């Protein structure tokens, strides 16, 4: 009896002696901030983490593409027929500041920017030899995300003469703890563009040249130039846009970089020769296979795609008969996008029988962000608008793309008009997220009720941000 009691009591005693150690557990799938930023390895892994956001549905594998193509659409190329109310509203140009993907894009962008700021403030942990790379990549990511934000959440560059209209908030220092949080106002579009250019130029100078494909898909000086070309084009800084495009084209050794057929660029699990920048996707890491991700909405294949984006027959009719980019394939036996060799196909999955684009037919394929043809088309437009021929004559540049597509060639510079440039650009780059920004740059109205500078074509600042804002400095866009 005594012995039993003694045993029990000792057990109880043992337990109470070392009270606190029983309450200490470490998370096994995560780690404290101050154990990450301790060495170069930690900084590098944070940088890879920042890249991982690029592949989310909030950017190039998702809304970067269809926000632009759906919001900028008037029904002549595609129709949104899906059930997701947010995108349905986007097609109808009746955006809701409460809509989930609109706030998610905002939050993820700043989440990535804050991570970049954390990396930049910890560069002292990085060896001198690797510092330019890490700094360059972090500034590259920050630059392209500010560009993404300002293009969607603000009126375009040039909306006011001095670009004093509201851009987006910018954060220069990292948030590590609650006390670091500030409630910033929106900077002017002019200031945001200054920051974008500063970041991308820095990236261009810090990073080495090279095709991203050979460098595991991360930023290089060449990729930074390609984005700079985009930025300058949107600013109508034609000279710089053409110059940066030329830099990229030269580093890709010109037209030889083009794939043999237009279709070859899409649905690949890696870079093709004409890809300047792609976001990585694979089976385990992708933007979504059933409710999210660009492929989900475009495709209608057995077992893949919601068939939410339907292509209009009129759009197909706008291609020349020989143009490989306008071919429609009807293959009811197709199992995967690999069985489709044309750029368009008759869907045989969800809502079968409608025309679909074959650009996005897998959830695990890399997503094209910048291809060499864009550089040619941008250069042609910039030179044409500027009356210059930096790199090459516009009609040569257009013909490079036409030749590959087996479309008729332009005979001379006299055939080049802005309409031709616009039409060539849409035929080549359709459904890749260019439409809305191109129309705004061209000053082309989307339809009778939505001019290029209509309030309805600018995403609202997410309502949650306005609700959270304690300073009252954050202002909603007009029209919401």
């Amino acid at each position, binding site marked *: 009896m005594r012995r039993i009691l003694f045993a029990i009591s000792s057990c109880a005693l043992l337990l109470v002696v070392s009270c606190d150690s029983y309450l200490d557990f470490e998370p096994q799938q995560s780690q404290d901030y101050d154990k990450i930023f301790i060495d170069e390895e930690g900084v590098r892994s*944070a940088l890879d983490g920042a890249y991982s956001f690029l592949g989310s549905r909030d950017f190039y594998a998702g809304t970067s593409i269809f926000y632009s193509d759906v919001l900028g659409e008037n029904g002549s190329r595609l129709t949104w027929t899906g059930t997701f109310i947010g995108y349905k509203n986007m097609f109808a140009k009746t955006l809701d500041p409460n809509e989930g993907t609109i706030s998610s894009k905002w939050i993820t962008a700043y*989440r990535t920017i804050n*991570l970049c700021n954390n990396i930049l403030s910890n560069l002292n942990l990085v060896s001198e030899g690797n510092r330019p790379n890490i700094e360059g990549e972090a500034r590259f990511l920050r630059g392209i995300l500010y560009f993404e934000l300002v293009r969607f959440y603000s009126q375009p560059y040039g909306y006011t003469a001095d670009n004093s209209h509201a851009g987006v908030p910018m954060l220069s220092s990292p*948030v590590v703890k*609650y006390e670091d949080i*500030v409630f910033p106002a929106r900077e002017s579009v002019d200031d945001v563009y200054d920051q974008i250019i500063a970041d991308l130029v820095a990236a261009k100078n810090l990073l080495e040249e090279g095709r991203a494909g050979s460098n*595991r898909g991360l930023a290089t000086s060449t990729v930074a130039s390609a984005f700079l070309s985009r930025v300058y084009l949107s600013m109508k800084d034609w000279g710089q846009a053409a110059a940066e495009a030329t830099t990229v084209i030269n580093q890709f050794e010109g037209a030889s970089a083009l794939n043999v057929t237009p279709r070859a660029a899409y649905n690949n699990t890696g870079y093709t020769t004409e890809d300047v920048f792609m976001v*990585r996707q694979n089976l385990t890491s992708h933007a979504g296979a*059933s409710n999210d991700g660009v492929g989900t909405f475009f495709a209608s294949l057995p077992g893949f795609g919601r068939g939410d984006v339907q292509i209009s027959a009129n759009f197909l009719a706008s291609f020349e008969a020989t143009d490989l980019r306008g071919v429609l394939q009807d293959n009811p036996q197709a199992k995967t996008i690999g069985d489709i060799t044309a750029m368009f196909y008759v869907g045989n999955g969800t809502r079968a029988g409608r025309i679909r684009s074959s650009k996005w037919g897998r959830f695990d394929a890399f997503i094209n962000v910048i291809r060499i043809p864009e550089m040619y088309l941008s250069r042609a437009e910039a030179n044409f608008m500027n009356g210059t021929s930096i790199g090459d004559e516009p009609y040569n540049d257009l013909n490079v793309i036409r030749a590959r597509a087996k479309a008729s060639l332009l005979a001379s510079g006299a055939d080049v008009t802005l309409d031709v440039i616009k039409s060539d650009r849409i035929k080549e780059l359709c459904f890749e997220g260019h439409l809305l920004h191109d129309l705004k740059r061209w000053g082309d109205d989307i339809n009778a009720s939505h001019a290029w500078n209509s309030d309805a074509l600018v995403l609202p600042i997410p309502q949650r941000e306005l609700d959270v804002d304690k300073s009252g400095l954050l202002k909603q866009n007009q029209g919401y």
Partner: protein
Amino acid sequence: MKRLCVFLAGLVLVGISFAQAQTVRITGTVTSSEDGAPVPGVSVIVKGTTLGSSTDIDGKYTLNVSVGTETLVFSFVGLKTQEIAVSGRQIIDVIMEPDSKELDEVVVVGYGTRLKSELTGSVSQVKSEDIANVTQPSFESAIQGKTAGVYVQGGSGKLGQGIKIRVRGAASVSASNQPLYIVDNIPVNTDNIGSSGNEPTNPMADLNPADIESIQVLKDASAAAIYGARAANGVVLITTKRGKEGKTNFNFTSQVGFSEPANKVGFLNRNQYLQLVEEGFNNVRAMYGDNAYSWLGVGATDSWDVGLDNLFNYWRDPNNPNDLTKGPDTNWEDQAFRRGTLQQYDLSASGGNNKTTFYASLSWANQEGIIINNDFDRISARLNIDQRSSDRVSFGFNLNPVRSRSFRVANDNAFASPLQMVALPPLDPIYLPGSDVLNTRTSYENGLIPAKYNSFNTTTYRNIGNVYASFVLLEGLSFRSEVGADLTNQHEEGYQGRLTNDGGPAGSASDRNVTLLNYTLNNFFSYDRVFAERFDVNLVGGMSYQQSDYNESSAYGLNFPSDHFRKINSAAEIEGAYSSATNYSFLSYFFRSNIKLYDKYLFTLSARADGSSRFGKNNRYGFFPAASAAWILSKEEFLSNVEAISFLKLRASWGVTGNAEIGNFDSRGLYSASNYAGYSGVIPVSLPSEDLKWETTKQVDVGIDFGFFNNRITGEIDYYVKNTSDLLLNVSVPGTSGYSFITKNVGKLSNKGWEFVINGAILTGRLKWNASFNISSNENEITDLDGQIIRSGIWRAMEGQPLGVFFMPKYAGVDPQNGDALFYKDESRTETTNSLSEAEHQVVGNPNPKFIGGLSNNLSYKGFDFSFMLQFVTGNDIYNGGRQWQADGLSWLDNQTEEYFENRWQKPGDDAKYPQARWLEGNGYGVSSMLVFDGSYLRLKDVTLGYTLPKRLLENYGIATVRIFAKGLNIWTLTNYPGWDPEANFVGAGPTVQSQNMQQGYDFYTAPQPRSITFGVQLGF
């Protein structure tokens, strides 16, 4: 805290030095006052201990007690509990009197028991009779409507789905609002551990309801504070059956039955659908001109059916292509449902001798649900053993191995979910014309394809068991030590076939394993003593340590040779493979004293100190005190002459309880790994919150317990105010910070309400009629959120409003002139607009009920018994998200409800409920209060008719009792709600704790509760 440790250790040591005493044997016979017959199975316990015995078949008992034992407690269900002073006697015979209302039942409280009459806190209880023969997978539905202040809401009619329980309202915004569950003194896991790809399941479905002896719900702070940091949502104590000394009783119950949906909504048939298309087509042309459908390839002179040709496959009859009344006419709603079946067999044995008692059971329950492809199956065994090895030492154990299997369907918000088939227009045929091949070219996914080829099977192996030993250290002082473990292994296997949207083109499979070990060590002393016959003291003090270890691994594969192969082994590609683990712990010290003076003044003081691994490093321990008092007026002289009043007690309590149900590491500033398609990086996931601590709820409760006319009428009235402060809140931060929220202790909310229970023995003669009615109200209000608004979809937490109000444009009805949907422009609700985007969002509904309650009736006459139970919920609103498509005037292809069809605007002057139909165009059909409905209902939840065969017929067969019965569940419902079932709560796949708190009253293609009829036989040997 260190001091407490030392104090407790000291107590343990002191305990060792006392260990000698003399024993004496007490015997006696217990008889009934009604007929003088011996009463078997009466529990005889030395007061304040667990030491005891029970009477045998002849009503006799023997008990070895230590010298100086003062009081024995005799109790039996249905009879008045008696406390008999020993006064040195060795033979004590007792005559038990029937207790019409059993006011003096023994009630389980934390770490001990009390007599109901001596409770100073608020405790609801449900006994085994009310839980017996439950045919739903888990017991919670059996307490629905029977416990005042406890709101039980089934999530859906799918089997084994999560059930929402709120004890006196929701006390938190971001931390869990589910009560703490304790099974035989051991906290058990009630959190969903299923895949985040589907809705939460209910882990309590692993517990066989037939094994439950009683359920107590500790509601006020005085009762619950002994569970400290986790008691703010109330505590549900479940006690399983134990054996009693006497001959072995065998019980066998068999039940079989069938079920069907409690309601069907009714969708348009082909002709109605075509009529609506034509009408909507003409409406749009009238508005926008003859070219309105040119985008669909419909020319200005084409008729409306050309549009259908361009949208639908196979909608015309190939033999009569021009006769539109001849094409397919599919009732897709019927395809989603089926007649379910259920069968359940329970076998139990209990008994024992004066040393050893046991309860053993074996049970098999099998159900085919009302939704196609949805089944549940559970095999459960239990062995509870108690051994008295000497007068001072007893020990025992519980073992409860269970295997439950759930065959599940996709979550409600997935095309693969059977009920989403109602979206399919009747024009879509089930099969490809002229074949028996399922139509793969329907407007949305043909739900019969996933139903045929998909599977999602969850197999759970679980054992909730414990071992205890109890020692009497000296007179009145005992020590109990127990170790319990809740060990769950859950295996989920999913397969999605090659023809389905989710599984194509070559099949996809998932395999997921979770092991959860949740173990608890309790060590505590109890001291029970009566001084000078008028000063009763009962003290409990001790410690408890709980640790939870969670391990998960999963693998996902793609590309199978055929749908026959469903294991990852056969996959050509591995889509992903994962493993993860997490832990938490609580280390707690508790103390309680109950004091009774002069048999009528009762005082309870309790306190608990809880340390948790979840709290921030600056706030590891919390302290939770409570105090309460009660006054039994009926024992005062001035009332002793009032015949009508047989019992009257006033009670009041105050106390502090906590809520610690947050993530295990919410206080840390963490980075997690993030895979960039082959490259692993880290990304920030949370900001540090080092001061994070428990949420604090202070509750005041005042109540009256009464019994009139020899306790023929009894009841309880309670009023409570529960104020929660330091809310564990996901505080929104600007997205520009790189984060969207931080968990901090910010904000306050309150719950207050009334509870009223009245029980009556209406007839007591040969025809007996007992009735019990309860009604309770709760008013929930968020009083302080530091100015912020917490949103979760359309649900909001905002100051001055109850939790989870619906926030959206307010629908103002239909413009009688043109059929436009109208909305109020702003909250003043004066001006209207026909543009949804111009309408200001505002509070348009409240999902929290105003009143809940129920009425139970039990009648018996000779061998017949009849019972029925009505349950009601009123004043809550439901947001029916599915009606954005089910009643949207054919804005798209989805089939429409008949109720919409009958109430739509058609011509100028119509005073219609719903706007004009405009085919493939909007007309204000979107998220607005057009989708919000009153969710009040009154339901005939349970009706049972039974007949017990007369004993004389059975005597020769060795059978003690035979009862046959028929039982109906959810037979009738009174409601104005136009959806399937007002008892619906879709929380989404893989919801967060906060989203589950906020997204209340959400119906999204959510399956109705089953209506079932069961026939059963109960045999006793």
